[in-house]
């Protein structure tokens, strides 16, 4: 059976979307069947990266119960240049949709949780996918917690920013632990001078593992190339020799054995 991987963080701007997209591309490149869903209904961003025009339906429609998931998913395999398959489901970026999603009541959120949980059968099993990856909103948003409840693995992306680290620690105890989720930390955008030797890298890992009481799956340096690309590149596909792409490939391998 395939696995649901949720990419989450306490704060915005930690690199969740970039990591989600590249992780999905890394798995597809390995020959896996993968589906990436944008569950960040407050600030949808996958549309800007994939520029898809193939579907008339959004994930909002699926959660509203107005269509089935098959109508939302777009086959991105031809553009992905991969050996496997890659499907993408987008959140509606229109202002009206953002407003609509932020005004949902608890009953709606409860039904949305049911529809997310049913994706394990309808997407992972029926479509025989290996991975379902959710890119989420930061913090304690309904859509993110719904995603976490349905997850098999949660990857929490954090920077070294103090408020990010403290917020992540709180979420570990007050969210992931309560739902007994298999969780790991990805430290992203770490200044290169903290990681110049193996000893320094080990020390950073040890420090954050002790702070979060969770395994740190990877420490990714802050790359100017990645910032410069401004979300216009999928590094695993466009620059596979780039160090960032290699880090993502390594994360993909580590998740498999996690």
């Amino acid at each position: 059976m395939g696995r649901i991987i949720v990419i989450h963080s306490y704060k915005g701007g930690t690199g969740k979307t970039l990591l989600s997209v590249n992780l999905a591309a890394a798995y597809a490149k390995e020959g896996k069947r993968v589906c990436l869903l944008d569950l960040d209904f407050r600030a949808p961003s996958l549309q800007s990266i994939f520029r898809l025009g193939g579907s008339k339906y959004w994930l909002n429609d699926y959660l509203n119960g107005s269509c089935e998931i098959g109508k939302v998913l777009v086959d991105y395999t031809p553009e992905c240049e991969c050996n496997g398959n890659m499907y993408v489901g987008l959140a509606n970026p229109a202002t009206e949709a953002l407003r609509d999603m932020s005004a949902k009541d608890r009953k709606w959120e409860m039904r949305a949780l049911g529809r997310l949980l049913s994706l394990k059968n309808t997407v992972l099993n029926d479509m025989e996918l290996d991975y379902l990856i959710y890119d989420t909103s930061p913090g304690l948003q309904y859509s993110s917690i719904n995603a976490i409840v349905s997850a098999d693995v949660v990857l929490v992306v954090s920077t070294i920013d103090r408020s990010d680290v403290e917020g992540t620690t709180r979420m570990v105890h007050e969210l992931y632990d309560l739902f007994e989720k298999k969780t790991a930390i990805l430290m992203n955008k770490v200044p290169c001078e903290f990681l110049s030797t193996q000893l320094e890298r080990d020390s950073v890992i040890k420090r954050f593992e002790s702070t979060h009481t969770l395994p740190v799956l990877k420490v990714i340096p802050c790359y100017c190339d990645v910032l410069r690309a401004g979300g216009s590149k999928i590094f695993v596909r466009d620059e596979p020799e780039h160090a960032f792409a290699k880090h993502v490939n390594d994360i993909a391998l580590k998740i498999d054995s996690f």
Partner: protein
Amino acid sequence: MIKMSKSFGKNPAVILEKIRESLDRLNEKMEIFIELQKHERKQDFIVQDLPEALDVMTLLSLPDHLRKTAVSICKLGHATAEEVAEQTKRARAVESGYLNQLVLMSYLQKERKGRKAYFYVEK
């Protein structure tokens, strides 16, 4: 209460089945009673006609033992205590108690189909 009526006839199998059903129901009621006593929270349970929303914020507010059961029923959709127990790796009687507690709190609905009691979230 088992009423010996003409419809049972003299078929001992039918009578035994009725006794078994009654014992099952009695057992279930005892499990609820034990659960309520164990947690000494009778006063917290206000039986309501309208179902409460079992959304993630509610899940977060539940005590650990009930949250595990509630998450499990959310995943299964419609399940018996035995099916929930398979997921949570706890005893069926324990899950039956927790499920009935969630019914009392109006988060779950319960229906009987033959000898089996099914629990589900009212959508």
